[in-house]
């Protein structure tokens, strides 16, 4: 209705502060709806990706690495670290009842020094037995991984075929993995031989990581797949009982620890969204009621001049819908400006996997938030409109006279 739009637009011009305040309130609604949902969805997405990328039933690490949380900080937060144990533990793990495959990994942290291009986590895997990393690598690289060939995580800034130097050894990037939203995105993968060569070079340069474990016998972790029909908890317990100086943990239980953290964060965000929404809706209802009260005479005149209750509601509704639409768009824009660039900081701050959903999902979420905020913003005006439309215009004019 053109007249309703004209009245609305002219009112906006005549009362810019009032209009701005209402737009900001609705913007706050869509900001929290979209921004909050995007954060929650990114956390869930990150957890799924983390769970999928871990890919093992049981992870075995040196006892101290688990108790000090070094393994989790490498995997989740991408803080480069290292820990070692003798590879005799691998044989012992393989001998445990229920273990189908046991594959060792070797961790090495590079440093911010002239010998290394970037400080990253290097994970060396055994191509013969690995069942967790190679399936992911095959998604982006199907060739063989030779000496000093590396596969980099999504956040390592180097094109394929580019060169990275670690401990004075030049490595060739052969592939880059998809993003996971975890510390694995800043990790560099290579085969076990390359990892050990780099370690040897580090030792030669004066970096001492290994302690008293000989390099040719050093491994960092063992990723285990249990035999079909075996309970993961049972195999985990058997490893902890039968193999000394290590700590085995169910990968799912590690994930569920993260999932618990994620649930808590999601619940807090959910409650904040609900609180903000309730507050904004109440404020909007009060604001529209006050504004409608202030404009009682204007509405009475429109009724006198022939506006039906429905038409009057349409006029009020059009104004509210315009405010709702503009406010929602502003909120969405602000959300995108704030939430997207802060993804990495959020991951660090929350210590949880954080992976933005696909563009399609983000667009869908944005449209949903836009519609919900605009509709809720508009609906709040209807209480006031209904009250005014239900009062006889003769009485409204009389009250005002």
């Amino acid at each position, binding site marked *: 209705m*053109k*007249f309703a739009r*004209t*009245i609305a637009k*002219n*009112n906006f*011009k*005549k009362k810019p502060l009032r209009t701005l305040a209402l737009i900001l309130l609705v913007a706050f609604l869509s900001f929290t709806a979209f921004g909050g949902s995007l954060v929650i969805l990114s956390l869930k997405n990150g957890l799924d990706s983390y769970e999928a990328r871990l890919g093992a039933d049981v992870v075995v690490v040196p006892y101290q690495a688990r108790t000090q949380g070094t393994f989790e900080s490498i995997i989740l937060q991408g803080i480069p670290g290292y820990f070692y144990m003798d590879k005799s533990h691998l044989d012992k793990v393989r001998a445990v009842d229920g273990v189908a495959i046991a594959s060792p990994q070797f961790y090495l942290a590079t440093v911010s020094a002239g010998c290394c291009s970037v400080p990253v986590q290097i994970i060396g895997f055994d191509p013969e037995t690995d069942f967790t990393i190679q399936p992911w690598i095959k998604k982006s690289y199907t060739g063989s991984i030779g000496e000093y060939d590396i596969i980099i995580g999504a956040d390592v800034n180097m094109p394929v075929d580019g060169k990275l130097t670690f401990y004075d050894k030049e490595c060739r990037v052969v592939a880059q993995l998809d993003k996971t939203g975890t510390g694995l995105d800043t990790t560099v993968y290579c085969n076990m031989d390359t990892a050990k060569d780099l370690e040897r070079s580090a030792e030669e340069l004066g970096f001492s990581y290994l302690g008293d474990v000989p390099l040719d016998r050093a491994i960092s972790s063992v990723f285990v797949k249990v035999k079909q029909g075996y309970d993961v908890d049972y195999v985990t317990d058997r490893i902890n009982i039968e193999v000394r100086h290590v700590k085995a943990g169910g990968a799912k239980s590690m994930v569920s620890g993260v999932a618990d953290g994620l649930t808590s964060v999601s619940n807090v965000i959910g409650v904040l969204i609900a609180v903000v929404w309730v507050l904004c809706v109440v404020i909007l209802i009060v604001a529209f009621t006050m504004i409608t009260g202030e404009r009682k*005479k*204007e509405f*009475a*005149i*429109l*009724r*006198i*001049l*022939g*506006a*039906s*209750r*429905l*038409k009057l509601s349409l006029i009020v509704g059009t104004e509210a819908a315009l405010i709702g639409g503009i406010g929602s768009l502003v909120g969405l824009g602000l959300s995108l400006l704030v939430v997207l660039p802060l993804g990495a900081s959020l991951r660090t701050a929350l210590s949880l996997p954080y992976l933005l959903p696909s563009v399609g999902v983000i667009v869908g979420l944005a449209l949903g938030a836009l519609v919900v905020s605009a509709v809720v913003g508009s609906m709040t005006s209807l209480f006031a409109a209904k009250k005014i439309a239900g009062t*006889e*215009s*003769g*009485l409204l*004019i*009389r009250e*005002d*006279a």
Partner: protein
Amino acid sequence: MHLQAKGITKDYFRKGRGTNVFTALHPTDLNVDGGITVVVGKSGSGKSTLLNVLSGVLSPTEGTVLWDGEDIYALSDKTLSCLRNAKVGIVPQGQTGLQSLTVKENVLVPFYLSENKDKQASALAESRADELLEKVGVSHLSDSYPNELSGGELRRMAIARALLNRPEVLFADEPTGDLDEENTALILRLFREIADQGTAVVMVTHDRDSLSYADKIYSMSSGVLTVESISEI
């Protein structure tokens, strides 16, 4: 057009004043067929209540208002709103400009609210608005906003607005209240002109000058309507 009020009364409910019910209009019968009907009386005598009940903006407590035999308060809100828009012109009490619209846009509001949306009708409404603003003497203010106008200018704008859709009945509540002598005469001559062209005018006023233009004169006191004189129409 024949407007007939039969036994209409209006009670208002008041809070915290001893008795809760105040009768503003005692049982009243009135017929309006044309010409100029003037109701005079003191403030608070019930004149505006009578006008509002007759014009379809305030339902009576008892009684009926018949428009060509049809009870207007039995009509649906949409039908009654259409009737007000198309056949009734109302000049309400006080300043009634819509602040966000210019003077001309204010005058055009009855057209905007009508169902008629074609371009030709729109052009006719625009030219009718210009003509009416000219007639009431505020055409030079057509692009101004109500807050830039004096009380008298706003009254004349409201009169032009009430006449836009060529109503069958014009209800005017103190139409000359804020006007000087010259403009009072201008408006009363305009009322006479439209009454002669077939629009019935019902006006409530304190202004004794308007009596010389009246075809029927009533007086109102404490909610009771009394016939003062009826001239030949």
